[in-house]
């Protein structure tokens, strides 16, 4: 059984090795080539930047999710945390006095920090419940999904937090050298995550805990601490995504982020990370997220009707993964 699974490669990744290991990269390339041919607007700088920007939120969530899934866990709460952190951070970033802070607008950085901390704190709660109290991750984070949504609505009174300060909105709408800021955030997150997972001790721990928690424990790894940490990471990145989303849409909506967890998990799994833990790469996740983004973009560009879009999307996701898996079919 285990034999035909992929193995975690070390840090050496040549272009050839990637292509060979990621059938999914080929699927992405195929999708891009096809779209380039059938839609003249696809391969334009502007549209590529669009796709990347649209992918940024799901991408950031999926990167956090990768850590969790690598340890055999799952984090269903990220969608709700996007809303919670967005609302809380935004409440410290309004141009006017809000109900919460009787004073001048807070500097954007503080608001961002608060959003990240809230996300990490919620992740920490999930992590504690999973690591310390041995509640299955599915249940623990489903509880957080529900609780965080409730807290969001309570905090905001069910109303959007509008009129965000320019500084804060820059995260979602600004540009650097002509490239939108969310893209930098996504790529920065990816680079850090890739570094952590492939180059640091903690990254090794994550793979070991997911691959065989018992062996990890016997080898003296702080298994519970690692389990805890990945939920904090996922929560923090959900916070980052929440901030980008609020900054992009211009106000923080309490009903934001519903079902985002599914797309994030899909990106991870399409990217080749095993839900059984211990196997996968964050570069695969990025490709998975891009594939989803390109698909959504392409279907819109082609003006496909929304009902057909859903059917086609379902078929394409499965087809892409099927292509990937067929390479190493043995059992």
């Amino acid at each position, binding site marked *: 059984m285990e034999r035909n699974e992929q193995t975690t490669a070390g840090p050496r990744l040549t272009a050839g090795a990637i292509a060979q290991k990621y059938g999914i990269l080929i699927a992405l390339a195929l999708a891009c080539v096809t779209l380039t041919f059938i839609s003249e607007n696809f391969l334009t700088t502007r549209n590529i930047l*669009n796709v990347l920007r649209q992918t940024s939120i799901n991408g950031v969530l999926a990167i956090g999710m990768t850590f969790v899934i690598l340890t055999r866990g799952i984090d269903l709460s990220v969608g709700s945390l996007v809303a919670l952190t967005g609302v809380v951070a935004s409440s410290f970033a309004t141009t006017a006095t809000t109900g919460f802070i009787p004073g001048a607008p807070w500097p954007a950085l503080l608001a961002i920090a608060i959003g990240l901390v809230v996300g990490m704190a919620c992740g920490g709660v999930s992590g504690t419940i999973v690591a310390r109290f041995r509640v299955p991750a599915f249940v623990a984070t489903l509880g957080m999904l529900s609780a965080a949504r409730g807290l969001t609505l309570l905090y905001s009174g069910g109303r*959007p937090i509008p009129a965000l300060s320019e500084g804060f909105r820059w995260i979602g709408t600004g540009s650097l050298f002509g490239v939108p800021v969310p893209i930098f955030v996504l790529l920065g997150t990816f680079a850090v995550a890739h570094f952590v997972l492939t180059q640091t001790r903690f990254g090794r721990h994550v793979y070991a805990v997911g691959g065989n928690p018992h062996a990890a424990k016997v080898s003296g790894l702080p298994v519970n601490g690692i389990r805890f940490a990945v939920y904090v990471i996922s929560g923090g990145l959900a916070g980052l995504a929440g901030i980008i989303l609020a900054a*992009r*849409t211009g106000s923080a909506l309490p009903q*934001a982020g519903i079902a985002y967890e599914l797309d994030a998990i899909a990106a991870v799994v399409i990217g080749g990370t095993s839900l059984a833990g211990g196997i996968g790469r964050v570069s695969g996740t990025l490709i998975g997220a891009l594939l989803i983004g390109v698909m959504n973009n392409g279907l819109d*560009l082609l*003006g496909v009707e929304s009902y057909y879009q859903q059917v086609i999307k379902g078929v394409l996701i499965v087809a892409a993964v099927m292509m990937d898996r067929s390479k190493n079919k043995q059992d």
Partner: protein
Amino acid sequence: DDKPKIGAAVYGLNAEFMQIWAQALQNHPAVKQGLVDVTVFDGKYDALTQQDQFETMITQGFDAIIFVPIDIEAGAAAVDAAAAANIPVFGSNTRVNSDKLAAYVGSDDVQSGYMEAKYVLDKIGCKGNVVIIEGPVGQSAQIQRLEGNKKALAECPDVKVLEDQTANWSRAEAQTLMENWLTAHPGEINGIIGQNDEMALGAIEAVKAAGLDPKSFAIAGIDGVTDALHAVKDGNMASILQDGAAQAQGALDLAIAAVLPDYKPMSEIWTAYPDMPWADGKAKEYSVPWTPVTADNVDALLAARQ
């Protein structure tokens, strides 16, 4: 306590519009004075949950129910069940396809759809290209607003509808959709008809992100949520206010009147909308008028939100 118990089953409380609706219910003078007990049930956007909540209210012996179903075709069974238990049900905001409804207080979506499209078409001078961002297809509000949109479009045969897609009432989805449309039809879109404000606001953000000026487009939405009021104030869009507060308070007055025989309506709405007479609480239909949000009334409306 033998105060009348009135339940309000609404399709979902996560978005601002229903939040305003529910708040208005709690702020109704009769509730404030403790004349009646009101409980709001959150249907979580699920017909079955609403059905379950009806059963719970029937079990608990509520005296009347105010109902905002998720869809016109959903909830007839729930109304039947309440009627069988002799509990009167009053519709608000969204109609139920049932003859057992005691009365209905709402606004005509066809009309708002017409009004918003008309605004867009007038602004672009009845020529050019528009896109329509629709609600979840098949929902009664979407169907009726689209009907209104089409009615207005029929008056401008030169206007072409370039794209027509759902964004499920969601700002984020509409933003993505609009970004992609702006790519697919560079420089061709003149007007954007959003079937609600959230989606119109998402479109505005997409326009801005593409480095364009929303003021050079004709953009309209429906509902009059707070963000939209701000956008109207900035001159970026037009909105049509749906008075959810009036829909809620009107329905509550009717419900109380059905339980307490000598009750006189206490909400201010009956004086605010002379076009909608109380009619002794005996009418079957009460139509709350739409109010176009303009530069003139937007400040007053915003002040009322605080």
